[in-house]
């Protein structure tokens, strides 16, 4: 098991390395000249050359890449040619905000989706099951920002129960943080819940057809007992996968919600940096997101081996 985890980590590192190459080529080589961005178009050729040298752009691509990746490993994301400010600090604080948002959103999503999906599966022939299933279908189909907009209109603008947007750091008062967090988390969580509940439903349905569930009933468990004792853990495996995938994608996918609720998270930072053509910052953000997605995959993979003894064996 240790061995298999070691192997997975190796694969993870290799994948991150390949991804970093792609990101570097896409964002350092393809777009224009960062020195030009830094100095503006009116800069003299001499100034440009000096700037290029200062930014290391006169080096070979390999050296540039090594510089960048070496910096990343040391926690240095470089200095933005646009703002002249170090990218890492901003990225970190934005990542923190988005992580809180996404984790809370995912928690809400799971809290809603798991019971919803199970009920929708078990009662799929009954009107309430059909209704739940239909609701989740509709939930998937509603664009997240529309949901957010309506939430704001009703709960913030009309009812004045909650702030319309923004972010409050916990050190500014936990109550305020929670109040600011509630609507965006609900908007994010509900849409995700709709997506995940479909997977819960379908994997519970799959499990309900498994022979061992029938065996469990043969032992004397009622259908719901059998499902709880024997089905849910098995059904959790595909749900784990999709939750992992969704969690990674939400880091940027939450940008829509961030924008609606004026939360300055990672997605908003990406948008802002992209609009300002701050490619080094964009490069850093992409690298962080991609690494996070791959890391989540790794964790999910490792969780599999914890949940499923077959994998423990097979990979050792």
């Amino acid at each position, binding site marked *: 098991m240790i061995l298999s985890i070691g192997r997975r980590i190796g*694969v993870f590192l*290799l*994948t991150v390395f*390949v*991804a970093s190459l*792609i990101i570097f080529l*896409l*964002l350092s080589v*393809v*777009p224009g000249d960062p020195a030009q961005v830094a100095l503006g178009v009116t800069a003299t050729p001499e100034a440009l050359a000096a700037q290029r040298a200062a930014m290391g752009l006169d080096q070979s691509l390999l050296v540039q890449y090594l510089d960048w990746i070496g910096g990343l490993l040391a926690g240095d994301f470089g200095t933005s040619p646009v703002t002249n400010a170090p990218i890492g600090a901003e990225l970190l604080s934005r990542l923190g905000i988005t992580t809180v948002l996404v984790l809370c959103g995912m928690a809400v999503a799971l809290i809603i989706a798991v019971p919803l999906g199970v009920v929708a599966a078990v009662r*799929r022939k009954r009107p309430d099951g059909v209704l739940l299933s239909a609701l989740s*279908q*509709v939930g*998937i*189909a*509603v*664009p*997240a*920002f*529309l949901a957010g*907009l309506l939430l704001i209109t009703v709960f913030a603008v009309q009812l004045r129960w909650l702030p319309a947007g923004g972010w409050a750091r916990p050190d500014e008062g936990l109550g305020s943080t929670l109040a600011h967090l509630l609507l965006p988390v609900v908007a994010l969580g509900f849409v995700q819940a709709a997506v995940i509940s479909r997977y819960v*439903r*379908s*994997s519970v*349905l*799959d499990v*309900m*057809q498994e022979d061992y569930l029938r065996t469990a009933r043969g032992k004397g468990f009622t259908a719901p007992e059998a499902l709880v004792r024997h089905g849910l853990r098995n059904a959790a*495996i*595909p749900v784990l*996968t999709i939750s992992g*995938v969704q969690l*990674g*994608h939400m*880091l*940027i*996918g939450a*940008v*829509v919600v961030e*924008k609606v609720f004026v939360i300055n998270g990672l*997605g908003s930072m*990406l*948008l802002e*940096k*992209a*609009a300002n*053509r701050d490619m080094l910052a*964009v490069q850093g953000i*992409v690298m962080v*997101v*991609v690494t996070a*997605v*791959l890391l989540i*995959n790794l964790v999910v*993979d490792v969780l*599999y081996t914890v949940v*499923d003894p*077959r*994998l423990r064996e097979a*990979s050792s």
Partner: protein
Amino acid sequence: MTGSAPPHARAEERRPAVSSESGATGRRRRSWRGGSGNLVTGGTIVVLVVLLALVSLVWTPYDPIPVNPAGRLLGMTSAHPLGTDLYGRDVVSLLMYGARISLLVGVAAVVIAMVIGVPVGVLAGMRGGWVDQVLMRATDVALAFPALLLTIVFGAVWGAGTTTAVIALGISAAPSFARVSRSGTLQIMSREYVVAARAANRGPFWIATRHVLPNIAGLVIVQSSVAFGIAVLAEAALSYLGFGTTPPTPSWGRMLQEGQSYLFDHPMLVLWPGIAIALTVLGLNLLGDGLRDRLDPRAGGAR
């Protein structure tokens, strides 16, 4: 363990080939009712949207592009059943034209994803070994780039717009096609008719085109309808973020975005495109579910 398909996918391959008696009579019997309900509802919605888009090619009540400052923000009238937008354009015409854009984005993204993903998946599934390993690792890498991230980055590099968005959405949907195709291919490759074809002297290309592709077509179609729905939603989100369809081309996402600041006085401007998007995605998802029920006998009438 090779690849990274979730273990439950592998478990299904262990199912006995011979169906048990109970399977023949009950457990795996197809119930057409649940599936066809989804299929009919979803199909009807999708067909309606397609019709709307097709009609918009030859006729819309008004030209949806020119601005008409004199006729802005009209409510529902007989001349404009759903009113006009902030540019004075007829909302019905905009919705029809927007259907075209949404479908275009969806179709183009799905085609790109399919063209990249399916060959990769089939190749990985058929060749196995290191080819499979390399392709699936590559798929993992590609999967680590979320669609929105890719679109925003592409927009920053090559300029935002429908084409950029479609390419980015297509690329980011490709890995899921590759995975679906691969797992489908693995199942097909374990079938004896493939062994029979090999025994009958048929090469990999023949097997891929005559046996694998026709048999995984169902899976790919289901995946397409899912990816289509995702693309339609993504187009809306991107338009909202300013990375999608560029003006003056009307799109549902842009209509939503433009109508947003009129939510207070003219909420219908948000409502109509919102309904259009939700309905279309709903239709596509239902269609996908329905098709899955039809094409995947294992799912039976369960879904």
